[in-house]
C-alpha cells in the first residue's frame, strides 16, 4: 500500500489533470443542482465521469463495485485535497440516498449479485435512489408501517402509500420498507425491497415545503413490482436491515453545520450588520453573549467529532455517539440560522425581490429547511431515547409490542 505522502501527491496530480477549473469555488451551488437534477452537461458532466472513472464517488468501496478501495485515512486525504483546490465530490448528491445509506447497507447485507447490479450505478452517480420508509401513520414509530408486499411469481407486488419520500420524482430506484407477514409481531414481518421507480404502478406527488421547494413526495404503490432478487437481507428480517441503514443515515448527519456562508467568520457578519461600540464589542450585548455561546458550542461539537474519531483510532465505525453528534450538529446549525436571521434585522426577513441580497434570502430558506434536521433521521427526541437506552442503559420507555 502506498504511504500517505505518496498518496497525497498522487491525488494532487490526479486533481490537476481531472478537475475542470471552471467549476472551482462553486461547490454549494453545484451540489444543490446535483441534488435536484439528473442530466448534467458540460464541465460538470465531465467531472462526474472523471470521478466515477477513478472510483472517487464512493472512494472507500471496493474497486469491483465502482469504488477506489481506499482506506478511511486515504479518503480523508482525498477530501482534504479536493477542498484545497476548490473541488468537491458531487456523486453523493447525484445518487440521492445511494452513497450515504443504500450503498453501505447493500455492501453489508447484499448478495454478490445485488452488489454487482446496484453499487456501480450509485458509485458513478448515474442512478439516484430514494427511500420509501415513512408513511402517513408511521413516522418515528416506523415499525407500524402498513404498505404490503405479496409474492407473485418472480416478483413482489407492493400496495400502499409512502410519504416524505425525498427525491421520489427524480429517482430511478427506491429502497422500500414493506410488510411481508401481517401475522407476525410489529417488527418481525417487515422486509426491505429494492425496486425501479420507472413503472406505471408507482405514482409520486410532490409536496411543497415551508422553504418553498418540493424536495419530497407522496409515493403511491398500486401493484408495483419488485424482483424477488431484490429483497435485501432475509425475508421478514428487514427491521435489522433498516436499523443499520438508519445508523448510516445518522452517521452521515453528524458533521458540521451546513448553513451560512463560509466566506467570512460568523462574528464578522454580525459586526457588519450590528456594528460595534468604542471597545470593538458587538453593539448588542445580549446578542454578543449568545453569539459567543454559539461559537463555543460549534467548536465543542467539532472537537468532539475529532476526539471520537481519534479514539476509534482511524476506524470510522458507525458509533453509538452518532446520536449525540446528530443532535449537537442539528442544534448548532439551527441556532446559527436563528442568530443570522436576528442579526440581519429587517434585512433578514425577506422572501424574494431585489430589496434583499442573496445572502439574506439564502438564510431565510436555509433557516426554514433546517427545521427538518431535528425531524428526519430520527427526531431530536428519538435520538435522546436512543442515547438513554443504548448508551446509558436506561430501560426502554416507548416501545410497546
Amino acid at each position, binding site marked *: 500500500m502506498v504511504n500517505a505522502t505518496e498518496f497525497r501527491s498522487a491525488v494532487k496530480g490526479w486533481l490537476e489533470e481531472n478537475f475542470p477549473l471552471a467549476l472551482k469555488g462553486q461547490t454549494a451551488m453545484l451540489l444543490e443542482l446535483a441534488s435536484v437534477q439528473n442530466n448534467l452537461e458540460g464541465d460538470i458532466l465531465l467531472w462526474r465521469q472523471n470521478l466515477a472513472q477513478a472510483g472517487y464517488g464512493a472512494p472507500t468501496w471496493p474497486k469491483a463495485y465502482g469504488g477506489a478501495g481506499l482506506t478511511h485515512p486515504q479518503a480523508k486525504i482525498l477530501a482534504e485535497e479536493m477542498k484545497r483546490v476548490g473541488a468537491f465530490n458531487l456523486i453523493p448528491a447525484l445518487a440521492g440516498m445511494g452513497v450515504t445509506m443504500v450503498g453501505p447497507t447493500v455492501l453489508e447485507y447484499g448478495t454478490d449479485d445485488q452488489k454487482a447490479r446496484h453499487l456501480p450505478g450509485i458509485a458513478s452517480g448515474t442512478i439516484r435512489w430514494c427511500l420509501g420508509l415513512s408513511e402517513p401513520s408511521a413516522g418515528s414509530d416506523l415499525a407500524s408501517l402498513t404498505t404490503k408486499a405479496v409474492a407473485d411469481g418472480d416478483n413482489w407486488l407492493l400496495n400502499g402509500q409512502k410519504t416524505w419520500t425525498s427525491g421520489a420524482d427524480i429517482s430511478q430506484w427506491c429502497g422500500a420498507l414493506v410488510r411481508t407477514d401481517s401475522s407476525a409481531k410489529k417488527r418481525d414481518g417487515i422486509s426491505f425491497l429494492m425496486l425501479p421507480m420507472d413503472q406505471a404502478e408507482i405514482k409520486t406527488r410532490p409536496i411543497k415545503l415551508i422553504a418553498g421547494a418540493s424536495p419530497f413526495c407522496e409515493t403511491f404503490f398500486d401493484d408495483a413490482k419488485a424482483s424477488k432478487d431484490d429483497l435485501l437481507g432475509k425475508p421478514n428480517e428487514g427491521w435489522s436491515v433498516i436499523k443499520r441503514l438508519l445508523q448510516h443515515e445518522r452517521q452521515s448527519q453528524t458533521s458540521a453545520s451546513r448553513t451560512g456562508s463560509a466566506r467570512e*467568520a460568523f462574528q464578522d457578519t454580525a459586526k457588519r450588520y450590528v456594528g460595534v461600540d468604542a471597545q470593538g464589542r458587538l453593539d448588542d450585548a445580549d446578542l454578543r453573549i449568545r453569539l459567543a455561546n454559539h461559537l463555543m458550542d460549534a467548536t465543542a461539537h467539532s472537537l468532539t467529532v475529532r476526539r471520537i474519531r481519534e479514539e476509534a483510532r482511524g476506524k470510522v465505525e458507525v458509533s453509538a455517539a452518532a446520536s449525540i453528534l446528530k443532535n449537537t450538529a442539528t442544534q448548532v446549525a439551527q441556532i446559527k440560522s436563528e442568530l443570522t436571521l436576528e442579526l440581519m434585522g429587517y434585512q433578514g426577513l425577506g422572501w424574494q425581490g431585489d430589496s434583499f441580497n442573496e445572502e439574506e434570502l439564502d438564510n431565510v430558506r436555509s433557516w426554514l429547511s433546517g427545521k427538518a434536521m431535528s425531524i428526519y433521521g430520527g427526531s431530536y427526541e428519538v435520538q*435522546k431515547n436512543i442515547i438513554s437506552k443504548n448508551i446509558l442503559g436506561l430501560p426502554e420507555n416507548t416501545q410497546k409490542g
Partner: protein
Amino acid sequence: MAALTEEQTMIRDQARSWLTEQYPVQKFREMRDSQAEFAFTPDTWAGMAEMGWPGILVPEQYGGLGLGYLTFGVVLEEIGRQLTASPLFASAFVGASAVMLAGNDQQKQQWLPAIADGSQIVTLASDEGPRHVPAAISMQASRNSGGFELNGNKTFVLEGMAASALVVAARTAGDAGDQQGISLFILAADTDGISRHALATMDSRGYANISFDKVSIPADALLGELDQGYALLEAILDRASAGIAAEMIGTAAQSFDMTLDYLKNREQFGQVIGSFQALGHRAADLYTDKEMARSCMEAALQAIDDNGENIAELCSLSKCKTGDFLHFMSNQLIQIHGGIGMTDEFDAGLYLKRARVLESCYGNQAYHRDRYARLLNF
C-alpha cells in the same frame, strides 16, 4: 477520553486505584469533619509526592517528570472524582506553570526542584476583590533601596495557608484596570509584613485572604519583566483554567455516575425512575454536555502541550463549557436523588458545594464567554 498514550493510561489507572482505595470521598468528609489545619491531611500530600505527581509538569532537568499538561489533567480528573484534598493543583500545576513560564534560569533552579519533590508549596495570589478581573490589580509594588515593597490585599488564594511561597501579581506602574504596569514576584509566604487569614469556604478547601503591609523583597524576586507581567499572568491563568477544568470534569463525571446509578435503581410507581422519559432525556442531555465539555477540556490541555496558537481561546472555551456542565450536573445530582440528595450524610452536597467554588475560580462562565468574544474580536 482522548486517545491516551500507554503511559497516560497507566498513570490514570494508577491514580484511579490509589485514590479510590486510599482516598475515596469518605476521606474528604472525614477531613472536613476533623477541621484539619490546612484542609488536607499531610499523608495524602506525602503519598502524592512519593508517586511523583508534583513533578508531572516540571522538566526533567529540574528534577521533575516533564510529562506535560494533558497527563496532569488525567490525574486531576481522578482527584476531582473523589474531591481528594491536597495542595497538588495549586502548587504543582499553577505554581509550577508560573515559574516555568516567567522564571529565569536561576529562579527555575531555586523553585522547580522543590515544587517537584513537594517540599515547597507555591501558590498564585492574583485576585483582590470578590470577582476575577486580572487587570483590576491595584496592589502596589514600589521600588525601595534593596528591591521592592509590597502593600495591598489578595483574596481567595488557593492553599494560601499551607503555601510556603507566593507568586504575587502587583502594580509597578499604571492604575487599576491597566494591563500595562503589572509585575509578578515570587517570595516566601512567611516574609515579614504578610498576614494570612484562613477562609472557611462552603467546599472545605484551603483558601486564604492575604494582606501585605510594607513587605520588603529583594530585586531578584521579580518574576519575568518589570511592568510586563500581564501577558504572563494571563498565560498562567490560562493554564490554571485548563487544569481546573480537568478537575471539574472529574467532579462532574462522578456526579453523573452517581446519578445514572440512582436512575437505574430507585423505584417509584412500580418501575425504576430511569424509565420515565423526562428523566431519560435529562440523562441524555447531561451525557451530551459531558462529552462536549470533555472534548474542550482535553483540547485546551493538548494545545498547551503543543504550544498551539489558540491556547487562550481554547482555555476560555474549556473553562466555560466545563463550568456550564458542572453547574447543570451538580443541580441535577441533587434533583434526581430527591430528598436523599438534600442530606449531609449523602455525598451529593459535597459535590454541589465544590462545583460552585470551582466554577468561580479563574473566572466563571460569564467571564470566559466575554473573554472568548474579546479574543475573537467582537
